[in-house]
């Protein structure tokens, strides 16, 4: 069970995608389908959403 890949639905395309084994809530991943940034909203169940767009005050 522990070794099962974490699968999720790409919210933009509906494709089934695999997430890194150590993925966590809040993390941003690049969709392997479109390259778009996706945010991990929850892990149980696994839900992804399109990540928020870059805001002007973001950065270091």
């Amino acid at each position, binding site marked *: 069970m522990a070794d099962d890949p974490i699968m999720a639905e790409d919210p933009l395309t509906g494709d089934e995608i695999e997430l890194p084994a150590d993925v966590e809530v*809040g993390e941003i991943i690049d969709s392997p389908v479109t390259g778009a940034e996706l945010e991990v909203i929850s892990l149980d169940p696994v839900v992804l959403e399109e990540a928020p767009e870059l805001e002007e005050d973001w*950065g270091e």
Partner: protein
Amino acid sequence: MRIGVCYSRIRRDEKLLLTELRERDHDVEKIDVRKHRFGVHEPPAVFRDLDVVIDRCLATSRSRYVTMFCAAHDVPVINNFETAEICADKVANSLALAAAGVPTPRTEVSFTKAAALESIESFGYPCVLKPVTGSWGRLMAKIDSRTAAEAILEHKETLGHYEHKVFYVQEFVEKGGRDIRVLATDGTPIAAMVRSSDHWLTNAAKGAETEPFDLDDRASELVAAASEAVGGGLLGIDLMETPDGYTVHEVNHTVEFKALDAATDVDVPARVVDWIERRVAAGIDAPEVTAS
């Protein structure tokens, strides 16, 4: 330790930090600041019983307010509000460096197009116009001519929100195609790299090439002074090399370190967490005094 990590987005940097903290068995509370409410009368419940809060907010506005609440309710936070206030604003940043006697590029601030043009003409071409908040080299302009200056100023004045009507004009520094990023904790360098690019912007976020950099005594001295100028903490200090020596153009307070971790042999998250542990053990309000 019980460590709260404030964020709204887990970048690779936060991931490295969280992993290191968990590997050392710290009790990590992830605090997505988008989900919380911060009351003015009492400390937000989420901050209770934490030994320290680490502010990793990507949005500078959130970082400022989160640390402001920490300061108001005596919640220890890395970096503290005072430092966030200075580093979040390029004007405050430059003023702090200048006041501390740290070499920093000549800079003038003005509030009208006419006054900004006077600054630009007095610096000569090229010169640089920067937004007072923002990062990753966004909305920065290298101005090569008076006609370009007029157009950029008009655009900013017409299209920008009020912060874009604060014109931050800086001399152009001939930096030999690269700048230096140093990650430091209370002024002690952890790792350093040069970022080189054919483009005048050499931010790692803009795809500059990175290479490890050995700090000489003068650079280390300036890193310590620049850190102190903004109140210390976990900082990214940016320097440029000029024929007259180093100049520090800014200090970043929610510093990204994934590029440094990749570019150097240093285990950056481990060194950062070593320092956090020491700081918390020593009482967070007392910055480490660097032996020099």
